[in-house]
């Protein structure tokens, strides 16, 4: 027991806890851990950083993990042949933006943009075509088909004994470039599973085995 006061209930029955860790894993980043100081109140059950001793540690942890994830995402894009110049021009960014991000001068908006483009690199194609509606629809459908092929290949790799893989995509492009995308499951079984319908504009993919 210490003479310290619990911020939740004002009681003094407070114990310093054994060293805890704060963990953070950003998308495309690595698990980063930092030891933190933590307290527990035996009166109300509160647990945490009672006296704001970890604020700087936590922000440094987040900064460090985010910086590594930025480098990782830029590396992944580079591996796909996406140059800094292409990235910047397609997204209408100031020149040398990517170089600045690499040096740690990034914003949270830059990280968000990088996460989107790393997840869906074809967004750059859409952007480089000035977000034209028909082109955007076609690129999206092509990307969706590529994804289905990738899923099928992965399933074959993981389950070579599978009798067959049902993966069917129907694209209905009537008047607009959007249409409807139906992915009829992902089923190495004879019995067909429940199918689901997703809108192309939501870029949803599911195996529908819920």
């Amino acid at each position: 027991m210490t003479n310290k006061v619990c911020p939740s209930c004002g009681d003094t029955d407070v114990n310093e806890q054994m060293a805890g860790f704060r963990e953070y894993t950003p998308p495309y980043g690595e698990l980063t851990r930092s030891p933190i100081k933590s307290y527990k109140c035996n009166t109300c059950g509160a647990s945490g950083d009672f006296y704001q001793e970890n604020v700087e540690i936590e922000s440094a942890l987040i900064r460090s993990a985010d910086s590594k994830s930025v480098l990782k995402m830029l590396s992944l894009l580079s591996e796909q042949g996406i140059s800094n110049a292409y990235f910047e021009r397609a997204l209408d960014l100031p020149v040398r933006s990517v170089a600045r991000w690499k040096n740690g001068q990034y914003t949270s908006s830059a990280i968000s943009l990088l996460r989107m483009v790393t997840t869906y690199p074809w967004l750059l194609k859409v952007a480089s075509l000035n977000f034209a509606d028909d082109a955007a629809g076609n690129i999206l459908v092509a990307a969706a088909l590529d994804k289905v092929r990738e899923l099928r290949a992965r399933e074959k790799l993981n389950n070579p004994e599978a009798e067959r893989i049902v993966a069917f995509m129907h694209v209905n492009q009537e008047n607009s470039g959007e249409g409807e995308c139906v992915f009829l499951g992902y089923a190495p079984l004879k019995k067909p599973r429940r199918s689901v319908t997703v809108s192309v504009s939501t870029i949803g993919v599911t195996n529908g085995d819920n």
Partner: protein
Amino acid sequence: MQNPSYKIDDFFKACKDYKSDLFIWDCAINDAAKYYNLKSVKEIAKYIVTYKLNPDRRFVNSIPLESWRRTDLSAPMVDAYSFNAGAFIGYVAFFYVPNAKWTIKSFHKDTSKETLRVPMFQEKLLPVVSGSSLGRLKGAKT
């Protein structure tokens, strides 16, 4: 019908003055990072102040703090609210003890309302996909 034990505006005011008036339990901070991408007391407080748990803020219940150990004083009441957090229903629970700080004890997904999805789900534009299925689709080790 049960009423909240606290005025929600008093809670928002504490979030605004988060440095002096708000404390968030460790488990709530971890859940906020996991579900909402809010990684610090500052980020959580600013999120609450800015959006005021809208849209669709709904009072859930007000119950005594379960982990309260003192017998000479009655346990503080914990008010819980749910709200639309985008892809899921959010849940926040908080309480206040006089002469202490406002405390957020929970800040996570409202698992009791998984079926009451946001409009995108209600319109059946997106299927409900379980975590394990998503993991397999993404090639994660299960």
